[in-house]
């Protein structure tokens, strides 16, 4: 199975890499003797595209990256067809077992936006966790239901059917969203759980963020999720979400930063995974559906030294490229944690 997966991923990567390599070689580079290939998350791709030329001029690394999705990235690093994989969902136990000697390092921080299409509604929709869970459980089906209308007093929500849209393919964004739903809804936690996909009881599935966005823009009354950079770039409106402090927060840089600030000063995590969904009280700005995204590197790689350097650069200097793309630079304690993980590579 691994071999078949590897082959599939290689073919997919070859196609995508061709274009990225083309762009990368155009960058001014001193000596391009080390080439590092990566694949995975499309969420983090805009940031990596900025890193590629910068890494080229800093170290002379020729980095290529194919945004084939988090799942594909995990499969590729497991099969060792790439030097690093990128994923928004932390590796599961089974995936760690299959991916021999893999180390997971958080290297970017952003959020998942709840996009919606409500023509004629001009105020920003406000939603809380219970409402989101009920919508995706199929218990809330009309926008003018008093259970939603109550906290959207001025909005005058229409009598439209709610169409909940989810990702049909395995996705790190789905992981972030279900992790949040499980944190705010015991029903969700016990019936559907947390994962890169779920047994969605209501709504309809679409492939990729672009598929979700496609359905939302074509369907009045639709709601769905994607990374906030995607929602902004495609000019799709998104909701503010109630946090534990009782405030409605937006997935802007401040909201993401406030969510990450709730992490303890000394971070311990055995596998490298960190969770900041639904952060506790005390951070009124915190956006509750924020997430880290990870790079997965094999410690047995022959390019371990270069990879260590690359990831270190990414979690330090690389972070300054983030804000323009709605990636909040990593907080100090996460950086410190990342160094510890990097040492294991």
């Amino acid at each position, binding site marked *: 199975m691994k071999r078949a997966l590897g082959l599939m991923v290689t073919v997919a990567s070859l196609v995508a890499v061709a274009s990225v390599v083309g762009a990368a070689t155009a960058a001014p580079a001193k000596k391009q003797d080390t080439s590092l290939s990566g694949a995975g998350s499309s969420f983090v791709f805009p940031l990596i595209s900025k890193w590629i030329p910068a890494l080229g001029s800093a170290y002379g690394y020729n980095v290529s990256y194919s945004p084939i999705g988090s799942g594909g990235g995990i499969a590729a690093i497991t099969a060792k067809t790439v030097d690093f994989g990128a994923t928004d969902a932390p590796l599961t136990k089974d995936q760690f077992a299959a991916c021999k000697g893999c180390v997971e390092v958080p290297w970017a921080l952003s959020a998942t936006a709840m996009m919606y299409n409500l023509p004629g509604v001009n105020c920003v929709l406000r939603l809380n966790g219970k409402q989101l869970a009920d919508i995706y459980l199929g218990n809330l089906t009309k926008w003018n239901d008093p259970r939603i209308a109550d906290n959207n007093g001025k909005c005058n929500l229409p009598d439209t059917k709610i169409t909940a849209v989810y990702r049909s393919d395995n996705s790190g964004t789905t992981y972030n969203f279900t992790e949040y739903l499980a944190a705010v809804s015991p029903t969700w936690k016990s019936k559907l759980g947390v994962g890169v996909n779920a047994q969605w009881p209501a709504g309809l599935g679409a492939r990729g963020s672009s598929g979700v966005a496609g359905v939302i823009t*074509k369907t009045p009354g639709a709601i769905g999720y994607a990374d906030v950079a995607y929602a902004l770039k495609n000019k799709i409106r998104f909701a503010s979400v109630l946090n534990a402090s009782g405030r409605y927060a937006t997935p802007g840089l401040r909201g993401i930063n406030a969510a990450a600030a709730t992490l303890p000063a000394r971070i311990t995590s055995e596998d490298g995974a960190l969770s900041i969904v639904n952060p506790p009280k005390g951070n009124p700005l915190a956006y509750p559906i924020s997430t880290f995204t990870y790079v997965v590197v094999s410690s047995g790689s022959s390019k371990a030294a270069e990879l260590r350097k690359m990831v270190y650069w990414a979690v330090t200097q690389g972070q300054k490229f983030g804000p323009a793309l709605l990636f909040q630079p990593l907080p100090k304690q996460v950086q410190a944690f990342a160094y510890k993980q990097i040492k294991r590579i």
Partner: protein
Amino acid sequence: MSTVTPDPLAPAPIDRQGIRLGDVLFKGIAFVAAVGVAAVLGLLTYEVFSLAWPAIQEFGLSFIWTQGWNPNSNVYGALVFIYGTIVTSFIALLLATPLSIAIALFLTEIAPGRVAAPIATMVELLAAIPSVVLGLWGILVFGPWVANHLEPWLQSWFGFLPIFSGDPSQAGILPAALVLTIMIIPITSAICRELFSRVPRDLSDGSLALGSTRWEAIRRVAIPYAAPGISAAVLLGLGRAFGEAIAVTQVIGSGNTINESLFPPGDTLGSRIASSYIGASTAIEAQSLLYLAAILLVISLITNVSAQAIVNRFQKARRMSTG
């Protein structure tokens, strides 16, 4: 061969050595090609089953009639997907078969040549549209049209039927079946056209000479003559419909329930494998997806074998009736 004596009147001598070598080479290549393809089929089936084996052992045959697919609590069952595969494919077939026969008859019997040729090309070009492009069109144009126009219309006329009940949806079993219809029409209509163009002229001329109308000639002569081929064409289309994954994934909405209505989202075997295999979070999920692949493989093999059986039976019947 070796006993042939050279004939002075024969044309220039032929290099028999070369011919023999060519013969041997040709035989060898043909043999390897034929056996190779058969071996690939065998190996592939073996591999799929052996990779799915842990899931087959874990869930047994009850996997087939279990409803539910929750990778987060390791509940796996194929029923929703088997249902979706069979329903979408049969609706597609139900719509595509009469349409394909009509297109083929129009092109061979009714339309004048200069109209028929461009239309035939257009229909065949439909087969050249990559399924992923068709799927995109399904998401952006066709799905919304189905939800806003076709499904409300069906509901207003046939709403008393449970299959047309409930809220219209732009992704679901019905749009998927319609996209499949579009995908199999070029295949079945091209084969049907070929079949109708091979109906011996004297048979239909004879029928017309005996006083039958055009329609009677078609119904009594052309269709029975082409029937075995048509049924094979239909089953080929069915095979295509069963296996199509990408276009279906884009329009079926990846639902997890079986509904009596055709409007809500569902899922097919191929579509679920395509959307969930990459990035499966546990080993048992990947194995269960391969179990789905094994089921799809078996369904497809059964369809193709029965296609051949039907063609054989028809041919035997025809041989007996013609003498």
